[in-house]
């Protein structure tokens, strides 16, 4: 990549020169009177600059995508090609400057091209995610039987080889932690949203709503540390040990509870939107029959909002399943299939981190398994998201 810095820099310099050259040439063609031009001088200038820069840069990016620089670096031929592209664009656009040339349209076409390129990056990201994981996952299944991966009940990697890499204990930990998080976050978030939208005075709303939203702005590493140094020891000393359920500060309960706190604002702000979308006429109808506000909420508003709320819960679930730092610091590292929530268990994301930050050989199944885990995680969360977004959208349309 380094050896391309110079030619790219030269091309940018050429573009700047082209900008000013084109401007003065346009003035010159017009004989000093810009009223004689179809396109203004700065439009010619822009066209020239873009024509000089865009094609070579595009070529470099394309080339970079092929990963050719990995071992050899660009050949002198390629350097020549991109310099040629730059100079061609420079020259053609300069020569093209006439009183009646439509530089504005050309310049706008360049810009539109750039805009389209920018918007395709989102798609390329998805493709990149899928392919990078698929590729290594295939590598992994070349070395490790996929049936063992999906159905084995033990996870015990061994860096001398012969590892057991079953995903089930990890999925169990993931789902258990997420379940506890949702059991905590859904009622709290939902009731908070209900209270804020149906009961709270404007004053209270103006204090409580931002305060809850602050929870959403706190990075997950903070929650992780909170789990590690406060919640974990607290649960161990006051619940797990007295009840004889375990001695570990990291546990499913620790991670679940803290993750639940993290999810409260997520659930409450989504539910708030959804509850507010239920038309007031519906509430009036119920209140007009002599229902109390809570009867109205429980029997009319919530049923009407149910699809939206289910969507919100699914989105929260997908959040919980993909969350990493809280479980890394709060749940533990031992893969275990157990029902005791005060025991340390581990999750898919924890293992992705530990397998990819260890010192094992990159080509070994112990490392590659992380990609299979990542792909599984991606598929699960994507499924949940697509489904949830679909439900929520359908729900919104109903009241539009």
């Amino acid at each position, binding site marked *: 990549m380094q050896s391309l810095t110079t030619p790219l820099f030269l091309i940018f310099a050429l573009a700047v020169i082209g900008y000013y050259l084109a401007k003065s040439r346009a003035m010159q063609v017009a004989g000093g009177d810009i009223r004689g031009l179809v396109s203004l001088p700065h439009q010619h200038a822009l066209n020239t600059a873009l024509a000089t820069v865009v094609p070579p840069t595009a070529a470099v990016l394309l080339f970079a995508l092929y990963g050719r620089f990995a071992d050899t670096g660009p050949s002198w031929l390629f350097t020549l090609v991109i310099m040629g592209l730059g100079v061609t664009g420079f020259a053609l656009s300069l020569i093209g400057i006439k009183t009646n040339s439509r530089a504005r349209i050309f310049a706008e076409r360049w810009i539109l091209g750039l805009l389209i390129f920018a918007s395709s990056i989102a798609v390329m990201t998805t493709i*990149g995610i899928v392919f990078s994981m698929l590729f290594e996952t295939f590598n992994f299944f070349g070395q490790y039987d996929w049936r063992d991966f999906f159905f084995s009940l033990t996870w015990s990697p061994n860096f001398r080889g012969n590892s057991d890499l079953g995903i089930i204990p990890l999925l169990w930990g993931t789902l258990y932690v997420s379940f506890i998080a949702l059991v905590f976050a859904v009622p709290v978030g939902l*009731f908070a949203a209900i209270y804020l939208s149906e009961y709270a005075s404007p004053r209270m709303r103006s204090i409580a709503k931002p305060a*809850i939203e602050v929870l959403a702005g706190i990075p997950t590493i903070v929650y992780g540390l909170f789990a590690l140094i406060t919640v974990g020891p607290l649960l161990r000393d006051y619940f797990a040990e007295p009840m004889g359920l375990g001695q570990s500060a990291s546990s499913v309960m620790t991670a679940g509870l803290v993750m639940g706190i993290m999810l409260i604002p997520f659930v409450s702000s989504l539910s708030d939107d959804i509850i507010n979308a239920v038309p007031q006429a519906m509430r009036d109808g119920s209140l007009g029959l002599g229902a109390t506000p809570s009867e109205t909420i429980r029997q009319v508003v919530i049923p009407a909002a149910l699809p939206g709320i289910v969507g919100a819960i699914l989105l929260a679930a997908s959040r919980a399943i993909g969350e990493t730092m809280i479980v890394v610091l709060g749940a533990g590292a031992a893969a275990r299939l157990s029902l005791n929530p005060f025991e340390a268990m581990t999750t898919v994301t924890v293992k992705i981190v530990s397998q990819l930050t260890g010192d094992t050989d990159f080509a070994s199944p112990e490392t590659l398994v992380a990609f299979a885990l990542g792909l599984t995680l991606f598929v699960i969360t994507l499924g949940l998201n697509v489904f949830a977004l679909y439900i929520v959208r359908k729900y919104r349309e109903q009241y539009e």
Partner: protein
Amino acid sequence: MKNSLLVTDARTKKRNAKEARFKAYGLSAIIVAMLALAVLLTSVVNNGMSAFQQTFITLQVPLPADKLDKVGNRDPADMAKVTTIGYNPILRDALVAEVERQGLTTELSAKDIGEMISKEASATVRDRVLANPDLVGQTVTFDILASGRIDGVFKGRVTMESAALDGNTSPEALILAQQLAEAGVIETKFNWNFFTAPDASDQRPEAAGLGVAILGSLYMMLVVLFLALPIGVASSIYLEEFAPKNRWTDLIEVNISNLAAVPSIVYGILGLAIFINFMEFNQSSPLVGGLVLTLMTLPTIIISTRAALKSVPPSIRDAALGVGASKMQSVFHHVLPLAAPGILTGTIIGLAQALGETAPLLLIGMVAFVREYPAAFSPESGLFGEASTALPVQVYNWTQRSDPAFVERASGAIITLLVFLLIMNAVAIYLRRRFERRW
């Protein structure tokens, strides 16, 4: 006679009790949420505030020429041959002498007294001496770091009981430290080094700082800003203003809303596979970190930019088109400037989100132990290519150390991170208030 309205019947009473209960649930939910926030913040602040204080020992250190400058020419190159090991006894003796001068008696051996000094101190003194060789031969007053255990005494972390069980210190050392503090030799001061010093090894938590992490985070934020903002704005403009309604744009739309919900760790896997393994960018570099965070924040920025563009009323576009501007001109001359505050707010919020993100950075090697300040540009590693770490990753790193003094460091780093986030969000809120426009 029919039921009077003025007396509440039994059934209504029951229903009203239910109503009150329901309302109480709602209120308790809010209280639970607020309480969680309060406990979280208090816990972090309680654990972390002490990281901004550090215990120093003021020592008069004689710098003997025969030990520090054996050649005798005051040439730093020659003097550098004396490693920190050569400085250790000098500092130890200075502290022993100080104890005697204060007239304090202790059962501690000279070696034990020396352990009250941070292992980092000799390096600090050596650097000072090498920077200024003329100090050799004089007696110079230094503020040197006390060891982590002694530091802990003044922060309540180390007590007589814990010291008795601790191989690295003893109750006698605590007593001596307290006596020295009364004599004014040991002092606890504001710890600027916490923001500037690089990380330190497992044995010297007292010297660990956030310098490299802050620099690394700053570099990454620059990368994110310079990539995510233009790309995000460009793609929003295309999708909002130019895109025809067809399969392709539908695909992009669905894509973006789903990308916003992809777990962040997946972006780390992407970064590892594409940027490091495939394109062979440097591991642990802010460039790769910035690229990963860019892809991660892009959906956020696109979503808020599109909202900002959407809120500019169509009449503005029509007005521009009406005077003969092209579609592109109407967008760039009129719509974009009007949407700018909204875009900026969204960008800052996206940056704040990126600043706090940890998981993907772990996978691209930013968790490594880095003591060198990374350069923004170097000929070998290119732009932002030198190994670095980042604020949230440094927190994670410190939580993995065994010495409990690192808990304080990690919490202090969190406070620092939260302060940065607070500032960014405050700026965003200010911008929104200042430029908010009602059409």
